[in-house]
């Protein structure tokens, strides 16, 4: 049995992951036709490449169907309940940076902090008769953040894309989404709360705690870890 390494199957995330391993002497390549999701690994023995959608890697890691996987730290926290019991962070990869933030309309000049958002939510509910709506696709992360912060009188509405447009379209009052430069937020007349950083995400190499790790697999992981450390020196 070989160690199964799950890597995003396309796009910048795949290219950067390939580069990251390559600079550590491990070559990952896609094999077969352009459309076939098959891959090969050279430079280290007993590692199989599994190409997956980045969004599915957290689930595969949690189930232990792959031993190692590269995906955004935000996706693992969002998709895996009690994530740190299911997977372990081995190495941040230094790319794929994005911040999950809470943002409100810039015209809300009275709202700068999460505490202000909470006060605005209380007033909004009293005035409009329903809870202030926050559009997001990161339900777990946002709910946990707002519970920790003690925010009340809000509800989450699902938004799988174009989330920044929901306020203008009157389907939400505030949003929680990933941003790297903040440009899309500004273009949609939104501002980030000064203490509204929910998670700083980065592409990360994860280890699956629930996968079956044979002695050979552990040896493979140790030699991989040694390679990563050498690179770090």
């Amino acid at each position, binding site marked *: 049995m070989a160690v199964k390494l799950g890597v995003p199957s396309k796009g910048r995330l795949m290219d950067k992951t390939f580069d990251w391993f390559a600079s550590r002497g491990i070559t990952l390549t896609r094999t077969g036709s352009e459309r076939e999701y098959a891959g090969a690994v050279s430079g280290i023995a007993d590692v199989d490449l599994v190409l997956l959608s980045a969004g599915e890697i957290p689930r595969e890691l949690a189930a232990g169907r792959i031993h190692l996987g590269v995906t955004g730290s935000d996706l693992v926290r969002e998709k895996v*309940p*009690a994530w740190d019991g299911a997977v372990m962070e081995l190495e941040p990869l230094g790319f794929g940076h994005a911040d999950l933030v809470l943002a409100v*309309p*810039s*015209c*809300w*000049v*009275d709202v*700068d*902090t999460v*505490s202000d958002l*909470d*006060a*605005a939510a*209380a*007033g*909004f509910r009293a*005035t*409009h008769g*329903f*809870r*202030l709506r926050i559009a997001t696709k990161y*339900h*777990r992360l946002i*709910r*946990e953040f*707002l*519970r*920790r*912060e*003690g*925010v*009340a*009188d*809000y*509800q*989450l509405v699902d938004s799988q894309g174009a989330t920044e447009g929901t*306020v*203008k379209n*009157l389907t939400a*009052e505030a949003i929680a989404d990933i941003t790297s430069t903040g440009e899309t937020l500004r273009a949609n*007349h939104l501002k980030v709360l*000064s203490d509204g950083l929910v998670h700083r995400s980065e592409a990360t190499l994860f280890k699956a705690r629930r996968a079956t790790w044979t002695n050979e697999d552990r040896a493979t992981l140790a030699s991989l870890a040694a390679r990563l450390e050498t690179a770090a020196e």
Partner: protein
Amino acid sequence: MNQTDALAQAEAARALRDRFVAAGAVPVEPDILMPAEMLIELYGEDIRARAYTCADPLRGELMLRPDFTVGVAQHHLAKGQGPSRYAYAGPVFRQQEADPDRPSEYQQAGVEILDGTDPADAEADVFAAMAEATAPLGLRAAIGDIGLLTAAISGLTASDVRKAALTRHLWRPRRFRALLDRFAGRKSPPAARTRLLETLETDGDPFSDAGPQIGLRSREEITARLSRLQADAAEPPIPDREVALLEQLLALRDTAPAAGEQLRDLAVDLPAILPAVSKFTARLDALTARGVDPGTLEFEGSYGRTTLEYYDGFVFGLSAPSRPDLPSVVTGGRYDALTRVLGGGAPCRAVGAAVRVHIGSEVARTRGVQWP
């Protein structure tokens, strides 16, 4: 769960209900599927992390009942009858993400009294019924009173806006603490707030860099809050002495009669809690009349602040001292506000409690006793 256990738990729950019915309660069988929207309205977004949601093409989003209280209260309000007491038994459903070892489906049996004639007696009645039903388990009782806390807040030297903010966050201790520190002048406001207030003070336009007005929250709502912020900044801090009294109340822990003494002492400096203290005393008398020794009850000033979010008066729990690893076997309390919301604003006094049958069975096994 294996079949033998599942059958035993269901039978135990029904046996408990029959006992409550024999004591005069009417049996009810609330729906398992409930409209998600209503539960979210009552409990907030957190309920999504605790209840199972399912989709119905015609009825929209539904939830598997996370407890019986709402279903029973709804049944009562729909019938529009006078004072009633109900008993129920059956499964409830909870997601257990944080603690996968806890069952996500388990049996509850309980009593709800919707009767405003004699609130103290209704509370004592529910408590006594639960104590009697779990007597073989050797449980210890903890009691609290959210009404004392709201009364204490109402007596602070502070504007109604500040009092409302504190009361709203009674169930979120961290935010409550932050607000109290801010209102007591122990923590200065964030820099952005100070700048904003300066702009308003000097007749500057706070909206100069605000961009276009978007979304449902109107310019009027924003300016109204700006006025509130100005008023808040002009308000003197809540005196240290009053904050200390509130903290004393929150930290109070003693047997119920001794706590009663201390509450009366506190009321000398905090007269706003006097009516709540009288209710507390009346409740202890009612418990005595129903054969419960108040000396066996442990009062905790903060009891019910973190887990029992919809209770707004008397709260209690019965748990096994020998099994601190287990949650309470029984929890209950007064939930007038919840029935008021359900009933569209019409006042309705309600108190109830539920037995977690599987926890009770576990305690019975540990003690080697037959139960129920």
